[in-house]
């Protein structure tokens, strides 16, 4: 038998993975959505009749066809209308106030608010036939002025919802900073930064299959939070939760984008109930590029003040966030940026304000990093600007301001309580690893050589939050020991490529002292595990890992109690080691866990376990060479030093760190959704128009770790996996600015395409007249 690197690898490399689109359910229909090409407009008419005449089409409906219907005869449904899209309640991502009066219909009723919003659905015997039908649906949308940029939309020149402001949420973190602070500071720098809208782009698009059976539904979905999906679909249908089972099979990446209940999911579940037949929706890529959730999307203004020695005095961050057409999923997400605005520095005064603005774009939602890249990029770009202003080395400026290790737990002015850290340790390791002094010498050498390409070095120190927000830092699960020696772990998580089936059985085996092959994991199935939160916010290793460690302690305690009863000895005398119980006073009394189960009956422990919020951190350094004639950026080196506390599986964490660095490079240099003034994304050529990094764009990357355990969890693990998206972009941008020495760094807005860089290379340099 071959020894696999991860347990998942056997099926995934042999072509035996099971993704939603691979699941064969007899009689399953395919749903295809008819989508508006207009970004904002009034829906005048939809005619589905021609679609219904197409052979192989089972039905075609617009919202109007599904309104005020007589109650379905089927006992399972009392629905008279297509339910609306539910809103996120977790982590303050949305709120009742923000969505009040702003219904998100699962199919457009009266007004189209983003390009690609579905005006009709066609269901066919297969995908080809459903698409034939979709091509026959006609509809008319009368265009309205599109609100594409948040600054325009915020002026309420045209409201997306009649009678309501386009500003759907305002918020702040920290206290307003007195004018005198800015007036009296030795140095104040300002900046404006655009965080472009990004496409998370998991290689598998969204997918859902809903199969009704009597009065129950089984739902297969590539998803990060199966219990949330169950809860929200059941509520949409007006059903009790226990009649819906959500199963997450293999999931082809998520990066935050697969944790919600999307309009299409509501429609598919509704139709499966209505038709009493299995229905699936397998999103295709062009569809995904139009209507999958977007990440980032902020226009930021900053002010940073320091004294003459480079000690930071105050930092102010103003965020105008583009949250898309409906506030339902991520209107509160920009608050993550505000709460993390302090970054890793001991700045005494920090104030961040947020205005979440509705625009005619698809909804913004967590994408790997989810609010923390926006915080880190704004602050780290500003730090480099401050270093130039003070003529100070950017590493030295950071050194003077990093929160020292003895200050933890550290209460930030923006309301976070950092658990632990050695920020300077990560910075120094990064500088040594990259050979900072060596590159500075090379930079100086090139500065004297007119033929040499300019070279820059960019730093980015970051701190992020993992585990989730208060009220969401717990998880459910347990362990079951079998008579055959097997140990089954269950939890509410769901993997989308992070190797849970490998990491968690290894953790349980290590904690119990048994062989790994005895332990297996069941997750991503609400039928197997009744309660759960899921995998998002870098919480799984930290929270679920701690839960399973805790379950091991419960199992050991229960095994000792049973053995003590059986042997008639006090429990204190019973020891646990390597999967056995033994009497400390009687060397002959030794029993393996499986024999104990045989003798005393099934042994199952379940619990809920909570950890504190954790704050991973690190320093990334990029070295970039810029060709001023072509506007191209050539990354020569990237060093990522991350600290995610105690690492459960070094190879898996390394893979997460490396992969996320490449996504971070994507945000810095390549990725961004261009929108026309009419609110239509300019992505006509699909993935040829949205530049995901390929192997050609991957520089030599070195990932290193420092290790500062989290005191908020028994394992000491903090979240891993988002570090590259958070730490890398500013390092890359700072390196390019350092190479070009432009007087106005705001000219360099991400993505740093050749056009942007070429123009910046022609702008006045530092010290030149502007």
């Amino acid at each position, binding site marked *: 038998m071959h020894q696999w690197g991860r347990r998942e690898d056997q099926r995934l*490399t042999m072509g035996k993975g099971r*993704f939603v689109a691979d699941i064969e359910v007899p009689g399953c229909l395919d749903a295809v959505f008819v989508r508006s090409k207009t970004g904002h407009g009034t829906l005048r008419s939809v005619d589905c009749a021609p679609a219904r005449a197409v052979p192989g089409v089972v039905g075609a409906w617009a919202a109007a066809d599904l309104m005020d219907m007589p109650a379905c005869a089927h006992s399972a449904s009392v629905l008279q209308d297509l339910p609306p899209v539910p809103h996120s309640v977790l982590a303050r991502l949305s709120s009742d106030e923000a969505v009040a009066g702003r219904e998100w219909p699962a199919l457009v009723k009266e007004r189209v608010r983003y390009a690609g919003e579905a005006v009709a659905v066609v269901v066919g015997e297969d995908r*080809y036939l459903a698409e034939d039908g979709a091509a026959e649906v006609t509809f008319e949308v009368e265009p309205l002025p599109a609100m594409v940029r948040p600054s325009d939309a915020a002026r309420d020149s045209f409201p997306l919802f009649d009678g309501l402001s386009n500003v759907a949420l305002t918020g702040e973190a920290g206290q307003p900073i007195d004018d005198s602070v800015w007036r009296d500071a030795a140095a104040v720098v300002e900046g404006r930064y655009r965080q472009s809208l990004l496409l998370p782009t998991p290689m598998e698009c969204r997918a859902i299959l809903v199969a009704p059976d009597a009065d129950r539904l089984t739902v297969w979905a590539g998803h990060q939070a199966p219990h949330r999906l169950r809860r929200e679909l059941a509520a949409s249908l007006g059903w009790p939760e226990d009649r819906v089972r959500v199963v997450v099979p293999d999931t082809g990446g998520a990066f935050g984008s697969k944790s919600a209940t999307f309009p299409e999911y509501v429609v598919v579940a509704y139709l499966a109930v209505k038709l009493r037949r299995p229905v699936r929706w397998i999103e*295709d*890529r062009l569809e995904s590029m139009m209507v999958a959730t977007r990440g980032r999307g902020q226009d930021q203004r900053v002010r940073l003040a320091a004294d003459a020695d480079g000690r930071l005095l105050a930092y102010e961050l103003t965020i105008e966030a583009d949250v898309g057409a409906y506030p339902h999923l991520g209107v509160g997400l920009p608050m993550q940026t505000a709460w993390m605005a302090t970054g890793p520095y001991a700045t005494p005064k920090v104030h961040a304000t947020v205005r979440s603005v509705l625009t005619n774009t698809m909804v913004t939602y967590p994408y790997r990093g989810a609010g923390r890249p926006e915080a880190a990029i704004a602050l780290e770009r500003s730090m480099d600007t401050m270093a130039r202003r003070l003529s100070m080395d950017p590493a030295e400026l950071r050194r003077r301001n990093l929160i020292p290790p003895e200050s933890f737990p550290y209460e930030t002015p923006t309301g976070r309580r950092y658990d632990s850290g050695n920020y300077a340790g990560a910075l120094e390791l990064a500088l040594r690893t990259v050979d900072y002094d060596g590159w500075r010498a090379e930079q100086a050498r090139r500065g004297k050589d007119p033929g040499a390409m300019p070279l820059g070095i960019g730093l980015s120190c970051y701190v992020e939050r993992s585990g989730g927000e208060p009220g969401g830092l717990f998880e459910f699960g347990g362990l079951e020991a079998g008579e055959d020696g097997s140990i089954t772990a269950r939890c509410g998580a769901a993997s989308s490529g992070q190797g849970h089936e490998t990491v968690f059985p290894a953790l349980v085996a290590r904690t119990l002292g048994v062989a790994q092959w005895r332990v297996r994991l069941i997750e991503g199935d609400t039928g197997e595990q009744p309660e759960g939160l899921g995998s998002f916010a870098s919480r799984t290793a930290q929270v679920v890992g701690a839960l399973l460690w805790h379950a091991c302690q419960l199992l050991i305690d229960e095994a000792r109690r049973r053995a003590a009863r059986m042997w008639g000895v006090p429990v204190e005398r019973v020891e646990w080691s390597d999967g056995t119980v033994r009497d400390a006073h009687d060397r002959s009394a030794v029993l393996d866990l499986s024999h104990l189960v045989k003798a005393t009956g099934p042994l199952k422990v379940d619990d809920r376990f909570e950890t504190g919020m954790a704050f991973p951190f690190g320093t990334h350094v990029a070295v970039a060479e810029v060709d001023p004639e072509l506007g191209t950026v050539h990354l020569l080196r990237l060093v990522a030093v991350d600290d995610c506390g105690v690492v459960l599986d070094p190879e898996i964490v390394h*893979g997460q760190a490396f992969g996320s660095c490449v996504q971070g490079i994507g945000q810095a240099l390549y990725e961004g959704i261009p929108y026309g003034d009419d609110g239509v994304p300019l992505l006509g050529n*699909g*993935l040829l128009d949205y530049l995901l990094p*390929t192997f050609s764009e991957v520089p030599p*990357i070195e990932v290193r770790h420092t290790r500062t355990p989290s005191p908020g969890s028994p394992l000491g693990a903090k979240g891993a996996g988002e570090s590259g998206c958070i730490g890398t972009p500013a390092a890359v941008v700072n390196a390019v600015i350092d190479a070009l020495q432009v007087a106005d760094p705001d000219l360099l807005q991400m993505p740093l395409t050749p056009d942007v860089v070429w123009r910046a290379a022609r702008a006045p340099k530092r010290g030149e007249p502007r």
Partner: protein
Amino acid sequence: MKITLTVNGEEFPLDVEPRRVLADVLREDCRLTGTHLGCEHGVCGACGVLVDGEAVRSCLILAVQCDGSSVRTVEGLAGPDGEPSALQRAFSAEHALQCGFCTPGFLMVATGALEADPTLGDDPDRIEDLVRSNLCRCTGYEPIRRAITRAAQEARQLAP
């Protein structure tokens, strides 16, 4: 239209609409779902298969164009005893997959190249070109490069 595909050595007499792309016929008609569709417009390469030994994006070719051809998919990489190929083993050993959705495409394009030229391991540039041909959003590609290199070097040692 009646066609015959030989997929992984097995003959499939099929009656398919001319408009059906090879990927859909492999997945739905032959029930070989190891071939994945990541973009359906020829960019990502997740749907890569070998048609008569040549790497092909199966979303861009019609099944009827492959009538009488021999098609190899990821399900056909294991040995007769079900043991994984050297490349499959290398992908696992190098952590060249995370979610695994793009993996079949990378495996097929690399298998085609390795079988066409067992000396591939001598030429890092050609291996890098192979890695450049497909998209992966999880790994950052470097582990995929290492995996193909590892399998190629193993093949080199076995070659006469």
